[in-house]
């Protein structure tokens, strides 16, 4: 019986042609009892492979091909846990000492980390031994052979592969002779690169990408034939009919392998409690302290009971260490004035609240700890911490690296996979598709969906590529490589710790960011093997809030404490009800703006619901509609059963939150908290979990026992089923709602500081800085342009304390390095304003000519001249002149360049800074638009329902949510505000390119005014010809 001992998946990045799951499937289909996945220098695909193989009843063997000092590949297979740990350390050692992508292992590394590993000689084209045989370096080949034999001893095998290639047999014969002379056994493998012949094309495509070649230039880099697929035993036996022993050896080796991914030897690290304390006693102590801090002497009884219950569970599940590790991070943040807030199901925990991890008060909220932690829950708890994006978060991350030592902490990986855009770009390069066509298709790609028809059809409609086999193959491969791994990236915030020993569990490698180390598994893989992680997530809004608070302190002299701002400010709710929410956390999207005037939030809990309800789940799960109708009084509130009223009252009888599901099960059917969580998880799987029938039966029995009639039982069971999948965690929504409220409060009361905070923390949120500025202007905020004499690097406040103006910062000049911007700021603050461009160049010598030009074009270097005058002077000043001529230089003459008109000024603003503080571009052509009967955003709101209108504006939003059945939402902005449009799928298809590519649009359509909002149903779209309209407007004057 044959076992495949050398297969590489697509996690041999840009080599393997099949996903790990597919390899396992192919083994099962071919009746092979075991298959070894050996990816190049990583085990990133190992967890998925392992799980799939086990499911199919195949014995999964994990190993790796290790890149050696001479760029060859050495396959190794761990037979024991020690062997796996050695493999992890071997890869980690090679990776961490080299630049990313430059790692190589040496024989000394193999000496150090060989125990428990089996070694094969490698594939004919790139194996450690065969590569020297192939190139005729017999002495080197012999040397390598001797070393491998001495290191691995009886765990070393000479590997034969036959792919029906003439050139391979020479190497095979050499290895056979070597085996006969030395006694090192032979083993047969197929050096698998793809599951079946069809996937060979993907492997070849990746070869081209890896070598920066095209199908036209790759030549012999591409495979000669498609023989490296998973072959059945009978095939291999025939191929190696002269070496039967080598085939039998595969089964013998597979049976030696004891190591399994099910037993990795990982345990969550202990927390080092202070002397004389245990983790449990320390946790209790700080919990007591925290409780006092939160409640003073008046701890509510229910809270005290809750805390005790939680502590008991934490101790029972041996999770004290986990909570202490998380608390330690939060404590570090507090000591360093870093805003931090826990989110997710952790907000159900009273212990988390008193430890300061979360901000949701159990005294005022209906928490359900079992949603976060219970005995029945098979997963580890998951605490995510939101921190301000930027340096604050980095500080927290580095704290963990330092605390847990080298090889003790690392980020989780993010497997970067091909999406349609990247697939189009890269496959397009390989297939020599003209760049402009590729760019066009990639741009359109984000608006394609599978439901739109296949990519080839879209390609034919939207390009000039014609129809040929090459083009058809290009389109086919674009589709096929979707979701294939491209390379290992770093997750934005997931971290795992295992003091000093993480590289015994999974290989580590350097991230692209300096100072960061990443494991080779993503968060799902980590969870699947039982590794607990902590997510340190950067929220732009928290950074903006932090900056706002600081600005308010510095400019207004006021101290804003987010923990104590009133939660019932009527101005805040009025703003939300008007959907005046540009820049506000979680409520600024088109869908939110459309919903807010209907739901009309009046209190904090309404906001919790608002944050949760505009998501795919509630929309698809049909919770949104009933909630809104009940909110508007268009439908009666129904609780299904009176006993459920306390649970569903706050959401008007519509089950919305996962916690409500758990409570329904507890109240209606007497489930315990843990059982209810089990129910949620069972129903929550996309595919039917095997526990569902049993749990459903218990639910029905329980409801029956409680006297609930059959019809109501069905109703409740259906609701439970539905929102187990679609429901949202209330705790998560509550955590977010706190930030939403804070952002709204700050915008209402400190508009200048808040807008500055937003501008200083881009990119974030839904809208561009340009839109944020115009929105603020419409609220009466004034702005000052970028000016070398006044602008700091960041945006800042100037002028009166009561109503400050916002000065745009140097950071918005594209092409200006941060270091240069900071230097300009420091130098000006140190030595006063600049006397001119020459003075600027003299005092800030690091500034380069491109930066000077950009500053000139941005209007920052006026020194009393217009932009072109400044450019003209700048070009003179940046020429290097020696000391002899320096003093002889004449005074600069007047600029001969034409003055910029207003449109050109705006164009310069947008091209250099991406924003403007001058008139909105649409204001420049308003006269011409008026003459043509084209309306402004304000005028269209006064039109009657069903009237036909033409509206024009800058496109600030194009959205096509998955739940909208192909409908597109567009927002246009003009000098008056924002107008909103919907586009039906057939119209979108007709005008797709215009809609997607035009920065300014003219839309003709029909007004849909429902008394709450105005929407236009777009029917005709045209790119707005700005220049010709500007000419018309300009000429009129």
């Amino acid at each position: 019986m044959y076992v495949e001992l050398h297969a590489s998946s697509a996690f041999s990045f840009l080599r393997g042609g099949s996903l790990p799951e597919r390899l396992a499937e192919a083994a099962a289909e071919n009746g092979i009892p075991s298959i070894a996945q050996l990816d190049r220098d990583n085990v990133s695909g190992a967890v998925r492979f392992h799980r799939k193989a086990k499911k199919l009843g195949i014995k999964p063997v994990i190993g790796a091909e290790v890149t050696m000092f001479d760029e060859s590949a050495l396959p190794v297979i761990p037979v024991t846990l020690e062997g796996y740990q050695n493999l992890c350390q071997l890869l980690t050692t090679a990776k961490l000492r080299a630049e990313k992508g430059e790692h190589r292992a040496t024989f000394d590394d193999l000496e150090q980390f060989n125990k428990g590993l089996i070694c094969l000689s490698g594939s004919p084209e790139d194996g450690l031994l065969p590569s020297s045989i192939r190139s005729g370096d017999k002495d080197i080949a012999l040397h390598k052979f001797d070393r491998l034999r001495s290191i691995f001893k009886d765990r070393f095998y000479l590997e034969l592969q036959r792919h029906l290639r003439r050139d391979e047999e020479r190497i095979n014969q050499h290895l056979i002779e070597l085996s006969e002379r030395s006694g090192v056994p032979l083993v047969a493998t197929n050096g698998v690169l793809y599951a079946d012949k069809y996937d060979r094309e993907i492997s070849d495509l990746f070869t081209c990408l890896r070598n920066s070649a095209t199908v036209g230039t790759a030549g012999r880099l591409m495979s000669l034939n498609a023989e490296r697929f998973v072959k059945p035993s009978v095939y291999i036996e025939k191929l190696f009919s002269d070496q039967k022993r080598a085939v039998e050896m595969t089964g013998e080796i597979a049976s030696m392998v004891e190591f399994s991914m099910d037993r990795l030897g990982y345990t969550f690290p202990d927390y080092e409690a202070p002397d004389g304390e245990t983790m449990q006693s320390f946790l209790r102590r700080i919990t007591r302290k925290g409780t006092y801090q939160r409640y003073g002497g008046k701890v509510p009884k229910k809270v005290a009971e809750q805390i005790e219950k939680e502590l008991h569970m934490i101790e029972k599940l041996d999770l004290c260490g986990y909570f202490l590790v998380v608390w330690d991070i939060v404590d570090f943040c507090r000591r360093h004035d870093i805003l931090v807030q826990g989110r997710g199901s952790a907000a159900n925990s009273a212990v988390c609240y008193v430890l300061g991890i979360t901000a949701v008060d159990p005294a005022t909220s209906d928490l359900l700890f079992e949603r976060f932690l219970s005995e029945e829950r098979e997963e580890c708890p998951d605490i995510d911490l939101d921190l301000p994006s930027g340096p604050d978060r980095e500080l927290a991350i580095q704290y963990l690296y330092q605390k847990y030592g080298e090889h003790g902490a690392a980020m989780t990986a993010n497997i970067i996979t091909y999406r349609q855009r990247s697939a189009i770009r890269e496959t397009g390069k390989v297939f020599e598709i003209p760049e402009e066509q590729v760019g066009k298709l990639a741009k359109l790609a984000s608006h394609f969906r599978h439901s739109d028809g296949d990519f080839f059809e879209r390609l034919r409609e939207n390009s000039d590529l014609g129809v040929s086999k090459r083009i058809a193959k290009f389109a086919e491969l674009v589709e096929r490589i979707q979701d294939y791994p491209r390379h290992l990236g770093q997750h934005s915030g997931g971290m795992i710790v295992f003091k000093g020993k993480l590289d015994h569990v999974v290989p580590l490698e350097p991230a692209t960011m300096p100072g960061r180390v990443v494991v080779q598994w993503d968060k799902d893989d980590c969870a699947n093997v039982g590794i607990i992680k902590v997510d340190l997530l950067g929220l732009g809004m928290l950074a903006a809030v932090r900056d706002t608070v600081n600005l308010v302190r510095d400019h207004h002299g006021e101290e804003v404490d987010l923990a104590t701002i009133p939660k019932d400010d009527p101005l805040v709710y009025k703003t939300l009800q008007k959907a005046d929410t540009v820049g506000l956390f979680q409520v600024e999207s088109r869908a939110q703006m459309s919903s807010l005037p209907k739901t009309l939030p009046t209190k904090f809990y309404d906001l919790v619901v608002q944050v949760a309800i505009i998501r795919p789940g509630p929309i698809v799960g049909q919770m949104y509609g009933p909630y809104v109708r009940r909110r508007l009084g268009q439908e009666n509130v129904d609780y299904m059963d009176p006993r459920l009223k306390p649970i569903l009252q706050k959401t008007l009888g519509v089950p919305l939150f996962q916690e409500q599901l758990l409570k329904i099960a507890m109240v209606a059917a007497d489930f315990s908290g843990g059982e209810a969580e089990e129910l949620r998880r069972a129903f929550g799987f996309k595919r039917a979990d095997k526990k569902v029938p049993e749990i459903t039966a218990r639910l029905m029995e329980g409801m029956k026992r409680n006297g609930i009639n059959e019809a109501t039982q069905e109703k409740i069971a259906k609701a439970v089923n539905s929102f187990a999948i679609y429901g949202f965690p209330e705790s998560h929504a509550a955590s977010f709602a706190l930030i939403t409220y804070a952002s709204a409060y700050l915008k209402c009361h400190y508009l200048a500081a808040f807008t500055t905070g937003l501008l200083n923390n881009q990119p974030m949120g839904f809208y561009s800085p340009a839109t944020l500025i115009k929105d603020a202007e419409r609220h009466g905020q004034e702005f000052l342009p970028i000016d070398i004499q006044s602008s700091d690097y960041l945006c800042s406040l100037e002028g009166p304390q009561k109503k400050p103006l916002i000065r745009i910062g140097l950071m918005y000049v594209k092409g200006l390095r941060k270091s240069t911007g900071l230097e300009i700021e420091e130098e000006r603050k140190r030595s006063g304003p600049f006397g001119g461009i020459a003075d600027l160049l003299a005092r800030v010598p690091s500034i380069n000519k491109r930066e000077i030009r950009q500053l000139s074009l941005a209007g920052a270097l006026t020194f009393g001249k217009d932009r072109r005058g400044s450019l003209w002077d700048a070009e003179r000043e940046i020429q290097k002149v020696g000391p002899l001529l320096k003093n002889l230089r004449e005074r600069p003459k007047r600029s001969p360049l034409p003055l910029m008109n207003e449109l050109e000024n705006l164009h310069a603003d947008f091209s250099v800074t991406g924003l403007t503080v001058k008139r909105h571009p649409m204001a420049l052509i308003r006269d011409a638009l008026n003459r043509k009967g084209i309306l402004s955003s304000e005028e269209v709101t006064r039109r009657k329902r069903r009237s036909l209108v033409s509206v024009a504006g800058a496109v600030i939003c194009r959205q096509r949510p998955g739940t909208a059945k192909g409908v597109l939402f567009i927002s246009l902005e003009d000098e008056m505000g924002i107008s909103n449009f919907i586009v039906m799928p057939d119209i979108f298809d007709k005008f797709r390119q215009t809609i997607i590519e035009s920065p300014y649009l003219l839309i003709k359509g029909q007004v849909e005014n429902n008394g709450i909002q105005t929407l236009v149903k777009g029917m005709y779209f045209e790119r707005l010809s700005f220049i010709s309209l500007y000419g018309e407007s300009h000429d009129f004057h």
Partner: protein
Amino acid sequence: MYIAIRSKSDNSQALEAARGHSPNIEIVGPRMLIFDITGSAERKARRLAEEIFSEGAYKAIGVSDNAAAALMLARHREGVSFATAEDPKELEEIPVDALDADREFRELMDAWGIVTLGEFRELPEDDMVERFGLEIIPHREAASGTAYRAPGWNVRDNNFLWSRRLDGEIKTIEPLHFILSAGVRQVFENLSYTGLSTQTANIILSGRGGRKEYKVRLVFPVLNEKIWLRQIVSKVEQDPPEFGIECVEAEFESCRPRVVQNNLYSGAVLEPENLDLVVSKLKKVVGVKDIGVPRLRDSWSRPFSMTENLSPLTREFDEKAGEVVFAAYYRYPKPVRARIAFENGMPRVISIKGKRQMIRTAAGPWRADAEWHRADVFARDEWDVETESGAVYRVVVNGPGEGMIEGGFD
């Protein structure tokens, strides 16, 4: 005056038009040439240009008293354009991007609001030099239609010319080979733009000590650099100059290419009847023991052996024990069709021109199915087979039962 022509496809028609009016023609690119009509008045030159343009094969024609300006007009305008130093209007309308400047310069012009060459010209020279140094002068000249462009006439009558004046003397063949190869490449590039070939060349080597001319004529027109260089160098080697070479000139007479031209000479193939004769002769040269008939073995390690028995009809073979032979493979100029019957996945019977033979031994398959992205998919299985008559062939199977004998081991 100069006339520059930008053609829609290749230069062939433009070349014909140019030949009719000037001995001085330069092929500038695959669809661009320029010729001079010095001595013609402006009006006459313009009329000529319009006449040529009316033939319909051209995108643009530029007419100017300056060669660079004529080319600029042809490149960047459509139809017939005219500009002189006195009347630069049409030149001035050309976008400033037409200047041969880097991206940084173009972006700066855009930022300055300078759109056309005319606007660029208006900028004060002193100020421009102050900003860009003297490198700006050629751009200004180009914008005003006064840029100097050295004539590079490379077509005279039917001949394509090239010459190189050397910095020093050369006296050996290697540097001469190197220099000639650059020249031949240049000429052939120009020839290829016209779709012409060449069969005759005059090579002139000159120096202080003399001048020598070599005439090279091939059997048929060929545009293969290697063949030409070999011929030219061989000629020079046969009769080398007795002086140091300071100037190398080459003049290739253009002509129509052969319809079928593979740039190769075909060799003769030995007829089978002559085999014995050839073998006897070879035995005398290499030794009796070192020549024989290859036999295919069923072995991965030693696929061939050799027998001295040269009779193709023998049914026994007698093998030199233990000898590994690297059999010479002879690829037929034209593969021979064959039908192959398989049994249990191995070839068993081969029929060549109606004659059936059993296959005694077979090795393979060696599989190639590359270039899957092409419309003409390439997929083949190769087998080495030895027939009952002792012939060893390489057979390619590319369809059910269908094959081609590509060559033999001889």
